[in-house]
């Protein structure tokens, strides 16, 4: 089981679209895949048409009183399951803080699933918190989508500094650009160079495309309604590069 965390300090950079589309592609090649929607907003759950609610709430789950196994929901796709979001996740920091070894809690919860899944994709909420530190300690790699702007590069530097300061430099940071508009000069200029130390830049980038936005209308992964679109192909290339990096 490999755990990928789709993460960025900033919100609105295409994290959920990345998590959902990568998961769908992984499942498509036959790997049993689980998406864990950690964001209380529940966008990934929405895309899979699953109610953002877990039995007993997030607190019991984090405390280990309920096995993750019981909370998993099958999606409409083969080999692909979802652990839905829950509104109570907004207090997850507090609950984690009360646990023993608070930064390793998520990893401990995930371990029993290692026989059932080949890939786990964590769709993480933005900001740096105890939740994100848990995610960093659980993940085999961080997949970081970013909009090609100066500010994005700055938040990436913040992430690397955080990892460095918490003895987490060993976690590979795989960064790529999403929502790229090739008509914008700034985007092209930022694309040309990603000069952040400690980051492995991926060559694939996701173009800004209405098809990606349509995911909210279709409530389904991109490749189910726009296969062969530029964005769908870009996610495939992204997956290849991530697998090579793993």
């Amino acid at each position, binding site marked *: 089981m490999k755990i990928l965390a789709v993460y960025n300090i900033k919100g609105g950079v295409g994290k959920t679209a990345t998590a959902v589309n990568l998961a769908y592609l992984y499942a*498509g*090649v*036959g*790997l*049993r895949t689980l998406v864990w929607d950690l964001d209380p907003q529940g966008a990934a759950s929405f895309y*899979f*048409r*699953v*109610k953002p609610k877990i039995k007993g709430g997030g607190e019991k789950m984090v405390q280990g009183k309920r096995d993750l196994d019981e*909370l*998993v*929901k*099958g999606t*409409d796709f*083969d*080999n692909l*399951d979802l652990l839905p979001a829950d509104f109570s996740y907004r207090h997850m920091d507090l609950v984690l803080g009360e646990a023993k070894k608070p930064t390793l809690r998520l990893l401990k919860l995930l371990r029993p699933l290692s026989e059932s899944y*080949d890939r786990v994709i964590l769709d993480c909420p933005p900001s740096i918190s105890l939740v994100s530190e848990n995610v960093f300690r659980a993940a085999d790699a961080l997949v970081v989508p970013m909009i090609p702007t100066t500010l994005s590069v700055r938040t990436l530097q913040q992430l690397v500094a955080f990892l460095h300061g918490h003895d987490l430099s060993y976690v590979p940071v795989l960064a790529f650009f999403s929502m790229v508009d090739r008509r914008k000069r700034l985007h092209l200029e930022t694309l040309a160079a990603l000069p952040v130390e400690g980051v492995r830049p991926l060559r694939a980038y996701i173009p800004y495309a209405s098809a990606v936005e349509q995911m909210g209308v279709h*409530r389904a992964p991109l490749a189910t309604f726009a296969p062969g679109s530029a964005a769908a192909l870009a996610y495939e290339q992204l997956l290849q590069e991530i697998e090579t990096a793993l």
Partner: protein
Amino acid sequence: MDFYRFSTADDPIALERRMAEVFRLKVQPERGIRGHFLDSFDWRLYGSGRVLEEEGSGRRHRLTLRPLGSAAPLRVVQRAALPRFAADLAEGDPLRADIGASLEIRALLPWIRLSGRRKTISILDEEGKRVLRIDIERLRARSGDGRKDAVLGDWLRLAPVRGYEDWLERLESLLVEVLERHPEPLDPLLAAAAALDLSPGVYSPKLDFRLDPQERAEAAVKRICLGLLETLEVNVAGARADLDSEFLHDLRVATRRARSLLTQVKGVIEPEIAERFKDAFAWVQKITGPTRDMDVYLLAYPGYLKSLPEPVRADLAPLRNFLHSHQRRESKRLARQLGSRRFRNLLLEWRSILEGPLGEPPTAVNAPTPIGELAGARIWRMYRRVRREGRAIGADSPAAQLHELRKSCKKLRYLIEFFRSLYPPEEVGALVSRLKGLLDTLGAFQDCQVQAQQLRAYAEQMVAEGGVPPATLLAMGMLVADLLRRQAEAREGLAQRFSELDGAEGRQRFEALFAPAAPAGAQP
């Protein structure tokens, strides 16, 4: 159980009508299906409680691995080609790991061809999410060889979605309400197998004869020979077609056992007949030997590669090509022999003798002896021979002497296995496993020696055939060195293994089970 067979063609129509009243449905148009149930000759996936289904054609095959009786897949993959062996799938292919541990070196055979029509209906919840998948199928099955076919009727396949199992319960109660009875729960694999007279999981090359110690030896021996003949016969077609190397292997083992039985338990079958068939079985061993040799080297090949340092591995490829081309040639020759009149008549004649009446009056000296008596005496004698030969072996004994010991051990093992039902299972099991331990060590010793020798012979042959690069010969030299090193290791373990049989405790166990009772009045 997620599968049900409808008893009438009206049932699915009634069910669908009622479902439309109660649930929110998404109905996909009916379409034709074509596929297979795949498993090894000895049904290893079935034996592990799983079913591998394939659907598709050309360069699109959808493979579904699922538990027997369940429509919730363990894994679903799309592949451009149907794998024949687990090893045909790419190294990281998740399906390879799933099925490889069960299949090992056995090929996947298209046991059952399925065709028919399917209508997929999804029950949706208020979010528009599928919470239960329902397939209504009309199926027809045909055996893999195309000889038999059968109508399987109308089926209901219910694939529950994880976390939404309550919808399955709701549908099941609706089903009973509509049909006014519970339909027959049955996996279509089992229905198809029954309709085509297939018996999943029945084949085993292992010996399992239930004997009565008072049974006349001739009857018992003929029964064992008949069992061995059946194993031999069922493997002929697969060995001729070279589906995988185990067919020929099992065929050869059954032949060797039969020959060993005729040799070791003398005077039970009429001597003239026994001699004739011993020769006939020796001929079968001879004609099957060259192909088996090539199979052995091809099976050993992945291990050879691993034993070499990474940079040298690619140099070995010409050896694999050499083995493949010679294996194909030998296998073609073998197919002709196994299809020959001589071979077919041999099996027919042997069967008619074994199924014929017992000799009345007996035509051989030991024929009327109770098998319990005869078996113990033969096993005890062979055990003493193994001890004698083993004790004569020292650190410098030639390989040929170890080979003789191995042959005797094999004979002893066969004897015990033929007659094991005459003895307490646990005690006899313990002795067989000690014997196996010794045989493994002797086998490792001899295999390494033979392979080292044979690889040198192949190297010469490859040079004679021309075009072999020197790097390949160097890599083969490294293999030979490694084999000789492993041979020396095996020799070191030999004394320990042998002492488990030869020691006082081992001897007592053998004596207690097999030694004939001392005649009255004899000294203890």
